[in-house]
Each structure stands twice: as C-alpha cells, then as structure tokens.
C-alpha cells in the first residue's frame, strides 16, 4: 500500500532537527517534530537526527519514549538515523557511555567518534548505492559531511552496505570503513546528508528514505 502524503517525524529531543524537517519538506511529506509518545503514534516514518547520542539516549529514557519507540521499530516503522541517529539504531555501541540505550533496529556494531575529535571532522565525496533513479547512468557521488562521526565496525548477514569511505591514501585508517547501511525499513548514515539537503543542494538520501516510508 502506498501512502499519498505520509507523516514523517523527526525525533526532536536534541540535535539538528530543523535541517531534517527542511530536507523532508522537500519530499512532499508532512514533516513534524516528535517529542512525545502521542506524537510518535501518529507518524508513518521517523528520522533520528544528528546530535549527541548520549543526551538523546538519556532524554528518551526520562521522557518515556524509549519503549514506545522500540515497539514501533520492532513492528517495522521506517526509520532513518544520521550520525547520532545511526548510533541509536545499532545493536551495539563501542566507546559509548555506560548504560547508553540503543534500539537494535540494524544488526551492526558501531564505534562512536571513530574518526577522532572535531579537528578530524571532514567532508568527502562517496559512492552511495541505491541513489540512482533507476536509469543506466551511474549516480553522481554524494557529498558527505562527517562530524565527530561513528563508523560501522561490523554488520550481520541481513544488512546491506550502501557506502564506504573511499580507499584513498588521504583516508588513512578510515579507508574502506562502512558509513551507510540498510536493513529492512531501517536506514543509517554516519554522516549528515541533511546539512546539504536543507540548503536544497542534494536531497537524495531523504528521497530514498521517503520512498521506503511510502512503500511500507
């Protein structure tokens, strides 16, 4: 079944909520911030934004959103997480805070702040599978902004790898690391497509996610 104009929420406890809302608004959906269980119940898909994953984990717990969110994700709610959002979607987090919660929507282990501190944050062009519009032409590379980003340390059999850090000398130990994945209705990127999508520069990752929401 396809929903004509789905409601897509952005978890609005902390982080770059505004940029995701702007990026979603470009995709002909109703985009809404979500901070309460009642608001969560009304969405057809949910974005977990960039921000501080330990803060979001703490607020999910204290405002009693963790269990409702786990239930909806387990029931197949389409979800997309960027950076901190990717960490929340993981099965397991390395270098996290003790007791940090995750939703386990994607069978992967992620390493927090894997690329280093802010002085190591960077932008680079990536090949990202599944961004083409179905034609024969290779899709143009995606400009990816990594900010104190995690990477995916390992994935289970059911996880599809969509993007890796290019294998170039400048990438150092990060070369070849997995930075975008999908499993069922759950999508995650270690970087921030919303920063470019909000400016109207490149909305393809949000387009991909909204396609999943419509088809779910």
């Amino acid at each position, binding site marked *: 079944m396809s929903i004509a104009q789905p409601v897509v929420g952005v978890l*609005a*406890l*902390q*982080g*770059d*909520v*505004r*940029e995701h809302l702007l990026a979603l608004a470009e995709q002909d959906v109703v985009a809404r911030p979500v*901070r309460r269980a009642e608001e969560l119940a009304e969405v057809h898909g949910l974005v977990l934004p*960039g*921000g*501080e994953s*330990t*803060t979001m984990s*703490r*607020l999910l717990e*204290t*405002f009693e959103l963790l269990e409702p969110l786990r239930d909806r994700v387990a029931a197949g709610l389409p979800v997309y997480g960027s*950076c*901190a959002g990717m960490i929340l979607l993981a099965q397991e987090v390395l*270098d*996290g*805070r003790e007791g940090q919660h995750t939703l386990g929507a994607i069978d992967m282990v992620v390493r*927090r*702040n894997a690329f280093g*501190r*802010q*002085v*190591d*944050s*960077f*932008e*680079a062009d990536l090949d990202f599978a599944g961004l083409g519009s179905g034609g024969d032409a290779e899709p143009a590379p995606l400009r990816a*902004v*990594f*900010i*104190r980003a995690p990477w995916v340390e390992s994935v289970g059999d059911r996880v599809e790898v969509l993007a890796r850090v290019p294998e170039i000398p400048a990438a150092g130990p990060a070369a070849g690391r997995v930075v975008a994945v999908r499993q069922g209705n759950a999508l995650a990127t270690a970087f*921030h497509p919303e*920063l470019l999508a909000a400016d109207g520069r490149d909305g393809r990752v949000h387009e991909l996610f909204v396609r999943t929401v419509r088809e779910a």
Partner: protein
Amino acid sequence: MTGTARVKRGMAEMLKGGVIMDVVTPEQAKIAEDAGAVAVMALERVPADIRAQGGVARMSDPDMIDGIIDAVSIPVMAKARIGHFAEAQVLQSLGVDYVDESEVLTPADEAHHIDKWAYTVPFVCGATNLGEALRRIAEGAAMIRSKGEAGTGNVVEATRHMRQIRADLRRLTVLDEEELYAAAKELRAPVELVREVASLGKLPVVLFTAGGIATPADAAMMMQLGAEGVFVGSGIFKSGDPARRAEAIVKATTFHDDADVVAKVSRGLGEAIVGINLSDLPEERRYASRGW
C-alpha cells in the same frame, strides 16, 4: 577535507537543543555528561570565582584540559582570551572540539579578535547585538552566543542580548537593497553578510545563549527568545545539588515551550547560585563590554 566552514558550522548544528556546562574537574565533567550535557567547557575557575578572586584570567592548564578530555566522551570546549591567537593554537593542538574566544577571560588584545579562519578547530564568540555577531562571523566564528553577564546568576543581560539580536534580525528582513548598504554601515559588518542574513532571516551560524542562566525557567525563557541552545556556567556547580540541577536544565531546554514539564523539573532543586544584581556591579567589572 578538514576544517571547512560546513564542518565547523555543522558541529554547532549538532549541539542545538542542548546544554553546554562549565566544569573545572574531570568529576564535574562526568556529572555533566551523566546529566545529559551535549558538551562541556573546561575551565580552571568558573566565572563566579574569576569575579570573586580577580586578577588576570587566562587559558586553562593543558593538564587540566587533558584530564577532562580523558574523562568524557562528549565534546570538550575551552576558552582562549580575546585576541590571544597563541592560546587558541595551543587549544587546537590539545584537540579541544571548540574554542570559545571569551570575554570572561582578560582580553589580550584591545583592537583585534583572533583570525578564526586560520584554524581547523571551530570557534564560538559572544555578541551583544547583530553587528557584533556579524563581525565575529566575518572573522570566522562558526557559532555565536549572547554575552550575558557570566558568573552573576542573573539573566537580565542575556535577555537584553537575545532580544536585541532578534530585533536587529527582524529589522533587516524588511529593508530593500539600498537600505541594506546603510544597515551594513550602521552594523559595522560586511554588506555580503548583511544581505545573506536579511534573506535568511536568521544568522548563518547557530545562536546559543550564555551568561547568568541559573534555573530551568531561565533556560526555557532563553529558548523561547530564540536561543538554539544554552551555555550554563557557574549556575550548576555553584548551586546546592549540581547533578539534579544540571539534569533539570537539560530537560527544560528540550521542553522549553511546555510549562508543565518546566514546572515539574523545577521542584526540589535545592539552593540556586546566590547571584549578583547588575546595579551592584560597576561598569569596569562587567564582561559584556569586552570585545569590539
């Protein structure tokens, strides 16, 4: 590519809706992290103590900053004196995640701020009005905060700065092209930047509030006045129950527009920082007038 404007400004975007807390020891940094802070500001003395003890306030000891970096996994910021580019170079080499070119420390240069484009590490700077904010952005600041009057536990100055910046922004959006040139002159800011802000209706970087925030309601008020996040300095660790107050301010920042939540988290917090009335603070001891 590291150190691009997008990477530096983007880092501040990720802090939005959050609380950044001043800490002076690794133990305090842990308390802040556990309470849900999005970052900590590593300092030797909180502003209330800088005020009380007087003397020249400088960048913190590198050992002390290292200790805090090792203690927490969230971003660590640190302060350099206004214009003190060598302190900023040291902070970058220590691997701090953001440098605050701060009026809370004693200024090192009375005419020039740091050329912030020259660094990989991003900078946050204080501003009392739009012109000051735009001058700092022109110098490369990737984030702006109100100056408030740090260490007083009194939000009146932060309120003035937030209202002023908001009013200045609103005014720009209704000016025509000719008027924007005159506005740039008046704001003492580059006309390209003034034009960009006029069309956006907001700053091109994230705007936080700072200075005197002591209660959950203070944080909620600042967020409703247009702040995108909150710095809390002396207000937490100069209060009776820091862990509880820290967590309450985090919650009030997220639910700033829901008075039921703010009311609930405001209960039973113990004593707040005592505070100073601005009328008791002579002009030469005010921080907001530092910076040019």
